[in-house]
């Protein structure tokens, strides 16, 4: 691993941290993507305006990436369609049942030193790593 390979992660991570910190300082809200999306699709938590704007910003940012930095986005989502369908269901259901995802638990919760978020983050990372390992040794291909 050379220095150039960690420049992107460090810079991008700092931008993610600043976005989450900025949202906290100005609005007091938690930059949890799954929570915001859930609020948008259910629309019943009284938080709709900021959640919709945050999700819209993420989509808009994605469109800008596609325009100005297309190499940041994959040409295809990688996995086979059945696997993407199953993965999407598990990610959506699991994030809500577990109360957060990589952003809410992994960045905001960890940053608050929340024991619940630290344990949740360690749990989903360990399970994700085990899943990748099991798929690989079972001869499955992810790409």
């Amino acid at each position, binding site marked *: 691993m050379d220095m150039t390979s960690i420049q*992107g*992660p460090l810079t*991008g*991570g700092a931008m993610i*941290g*600043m*976005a*989450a910190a900025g*949202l906290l300082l100005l*609005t*007091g809200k938690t*930059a949890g*993507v799954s929570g915001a*999306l859930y609020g948008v*699709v259910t629309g019943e938590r009284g938080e709709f305006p900021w959640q919709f*704007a*945050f999700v819209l*910003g993420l*989509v808009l*940012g*994605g469109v*800008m990436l596609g325009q100005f930095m297309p190499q940041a986005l*994959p*040409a*295809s*989502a990688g*996995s086979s369609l059945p*696997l*993407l369908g*199953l993965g*999407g*269901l*598990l990610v*959506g*259901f*699991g*994030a*809500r*049942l*577990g*109360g957060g*995802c*990589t*952003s809410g638990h*992994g*960045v905001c*919760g*960890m*940053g*608050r030193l929340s024991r*619940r978020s630290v*344990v*949740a983050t360690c*749990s989903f990372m360990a*399970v994700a*790593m*085990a*899943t990748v*390992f099991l798929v*690989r040794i079972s001869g499955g291909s992810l790409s």
Partner: protein
Amino acid sequence: MKAAAALAFGVLFAWGLGISGMSRPEVVLGFLDILGDWNPALMFVMGSAVPIYMAAWFARVGKRPLLGGPAPKGARHDLDGRMFAGAALFGVGWGLCGICPGPALTLLGRPSAGGLLFLACMLCGMLLYRVVDARRAGANPA
């Protein structure tokens, strides 16, 4: 004002995902493959995001946000089975595809059938949770 701030920070967040590599499933899967051809670079995403958020959180803990409204609630430290079960299901889905909710949204910037399917199924998973949760609440009124 709050919505405008959320929009701007959403855009910044998406660019962070793009620049860090989190928006590319194959990079995420390489990071999760610790027993294979492990690419640890994504550790530095959390490594720089978390301290920045932490500084903001502890500088303002218990204080009202600058644009008004109530102070955010304190950090949660309780653990329960729902959290563990949810984290486990989320982990399987993340490990299968290398896509978590933020990157599922940025994928729309370069639309593909697979990316759209993942996002649609992720939203269905959330709605399914809502149905299951409402049934559970109905069966055990608090």
